[in-house]
């Protein structure tokens, strides 16, 4: 600094001289400097713009891929639902309508019986003969006219007829009673017919309601196949819900697995040693973890074999016989492991008591070694947990499948958001550099305001002279 101010005996003059020199130099290279600034900021602006476009293109590709994944997942899920609905209809038809011929025969028989009974009920016993009244009149006539012989014959006939009438009336009453009895017999048949028809009606209603459900699912399926925006929006939100719900359930399952781990890790030390290490981890801990992971794997295979989940298409595609075998094998392994865990849980309790007793002896507190009366409750509870938790962990397969499927969509959505933000940032940075170039040029010109002002004045004067010259000509 002192050197700069020492080029003349007067520092102020030196400073002024430097200012003039620097300004002159800056003015002389102004054009080049502006071009350099323009080139630098312009290239940065273009680079960021290109990068932003590339990111936008990637974002579009990812969005398309996401859409495809979502639609494929939705299609698959919907197909599964529809397939299941058809299975249910098939089951209903097989179970309830397969015996339709038997039902029909039963109905026909019931109706036949009713018809027969009805026919029998319709048969009316004959009325007493109509000429009885005439005979009565003849009998009366005989008494008036004193025709004793004819009268006695007719009187006999009259008596016989009255007797016959009585017999006919008795037969009539008996027949009526029988008819009523037959009609009474028809009642259970009617009731049976009514019940059968009600059951048929219920089945038909169930089928109808299922057909309505299938119609709805088919409409949604068509929407998915055609890639409608509404379908995508529904699938997307449902995927997010599935993701969070399955993540929550998986967290619970992890909690269960942790408890399971703590139940068997300590007694495992009895089997594999308490201090041996693999890497930085205790072998007993690793062994306990492996048991739990094997249980979860067996649970996954069991669920796959039962066709509840579809994480491994190979298992689902196995022949039914092999699949059933696999169900039994995986279940047996799971059962054995659960039994082993129950045993280990018991061992844990025994070890704990042993350790407590030793500690008490070392403390000199002999009284504390006595075992509590109700300690069997905790032992039983631990054994129960050890046995049940492996089976409970089996059901992890269901949320795991949902989680894996929804994870693809969620990761896609997160990636999409990230790319969108990145694209925006790149565009913003590109614009920042564009305006930074303008700003830098303006800043460069600030110290050159004197020569620039002179230049402008001279330009104006030259312009004025040129105008005067043109007017003079």
């Amino acid at each position: 600094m002192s050197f700069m101010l020492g080029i003349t005996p007067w520092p102020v003059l030196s400073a002024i001289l430097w200012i003039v020199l620097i300004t002159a130099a800056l003015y002389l290279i102004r054009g080049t400097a502006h071009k350099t600034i323009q080139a630098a900021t312009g290239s940065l602006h273009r680079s960021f713009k290109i990068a932003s476009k590339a990111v936008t293109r990637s974002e579009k590709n990812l969005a398309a891929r996401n859409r495809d994944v979502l639609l494929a997942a939705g299609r698959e899920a919907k197909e599964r639902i529809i397939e299941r609905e058809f299975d249910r209809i098939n089951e209903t038809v097989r179970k309830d309508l397969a015996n339709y011929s038997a039902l029909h025969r039963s109905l026909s028989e019931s109706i036949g019986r009713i018809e027969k009974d009805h026919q029998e009920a319709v048969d009316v016993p004959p009325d007493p003969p109509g000429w009885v009244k005439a005979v009565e009149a003849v009998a009366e006539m005989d008494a008036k006219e004193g025709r004793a012989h004819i009268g006695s014959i007719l009187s006999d006939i009259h008596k016989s007829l009255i007797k016959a009438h009585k017999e006919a009336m008795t037969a009539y009453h008996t027949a009526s009673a029988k008819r009523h009895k037959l009609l009474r017999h028809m009642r259970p048949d009617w009731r049976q017919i009514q019940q059968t028809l009600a059951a048929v009606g219920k089945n038909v209603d169930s089928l109808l309601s299922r057909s309505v459900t299938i119609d709805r699912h088919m409409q949604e399926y068509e929407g998915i196949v055609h890639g409608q925006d509404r379908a995508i929006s529904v699938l997307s939100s449902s995927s997010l819900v599935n993701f969070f719900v399955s993540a929550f359930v998986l967290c619970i399952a992890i909690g269960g697995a942790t408890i399971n781990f703590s139940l068997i890790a300590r007694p495992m030390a009895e089997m594999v040693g308490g201090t041996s290490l693999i890497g930085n981890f205790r072998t007993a801990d690793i062994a306990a973890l492996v048991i739990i992971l094997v249980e979860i794997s067996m649970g996954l295979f069991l669920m796959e074999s039962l066709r509840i989940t579809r994480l491994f298409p190979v298992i689902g595609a196995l022949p039914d016989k092999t699949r059933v075998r696999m169900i039994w094998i995986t279940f047996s392994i799971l059962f054995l492991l659960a039994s082993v865990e129950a045993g280990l849980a018991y061992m844990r309790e025994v070890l704990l008591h042993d350790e407590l007793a030793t500690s008490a002896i070392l403390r000199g507190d002999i009284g504390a070694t006595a075992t509590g009366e109700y300690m069997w409750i905790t032992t039983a509870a631990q054994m129960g947990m050890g046995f049940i938790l492996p089976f409970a962990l089996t059901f992890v397969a269901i949320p795991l499948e949902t989680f894996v499927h929804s994870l693809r969509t969620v990761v896609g959505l997160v990636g999409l958001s990230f790319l969108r933000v990145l694209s925006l940032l790149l565009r913003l940075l590109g614009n920042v550099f564009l305006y930074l170039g303008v700003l830098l040029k303006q800043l460069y010109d600030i110290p050159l305001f004197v020569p620039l002002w002179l230049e402008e004045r001279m330009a104006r004067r030259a312009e004025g002279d040129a105008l005067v010259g043109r007017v003079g000509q």
Partner: protein
Amino acid sequence: MRNLFLAILCVVLVSCSSETTPRNTGVFMLVDTSGTYTEELDKAEQIIRYTLSKLDATDTFAVARIDTGSFSEKDIVAKASFDDRPSAVNRQKRLFAQQVSDFVASADPSPYTDITGGLLQAVEFLNEKGTGNKTILIFSDLKEDLEDGYIRDIDVQLQGFEVIALNVTKLRSDNIDPREYLGRLEEWQGRVEKTGGEWRVINDLDGLEGLL
């Protein structure tokens, strides 16, 4: 997937094959039985029980008496290298505690105090066991009193050992001239640290938390 499997396999193999330093602890406790110090044996038993409760599977613990000639296996009252299985460890600890109780009940006072011999015995024992951490507990007033003919003017190599003096009681002469007591402590500290050992003194037996 194949690469991942290979990577996991490599990590497991490397972790299995790499030589690991032992992490177990070896403790050798020397209990002074000379003169009136036998009256302090109850405290020693307390410390032994506390130490037992702190030790775990594969650790080693031995208790030896300091008497006229302590550089001898015969002076080891109880010793145990704990098993790998927790249930066996518990059994060993109970047996150890019983042996120590029996010793405390029947210990006779010895006429001389050979601390250096005991220290040599402890170093030899722990080196033989090859434990990761080596601790020697000296339950004594640190007043060495050798019988004529016993040569103990030797440097005990204590590199990697921690020597903890416990319950260093003051003698009557220490009360008259405390420099004796302080001098004894300094002398032992010097001997231990000279050969690379670490030295600590714990006189407050209620604060044994930092013992191991």
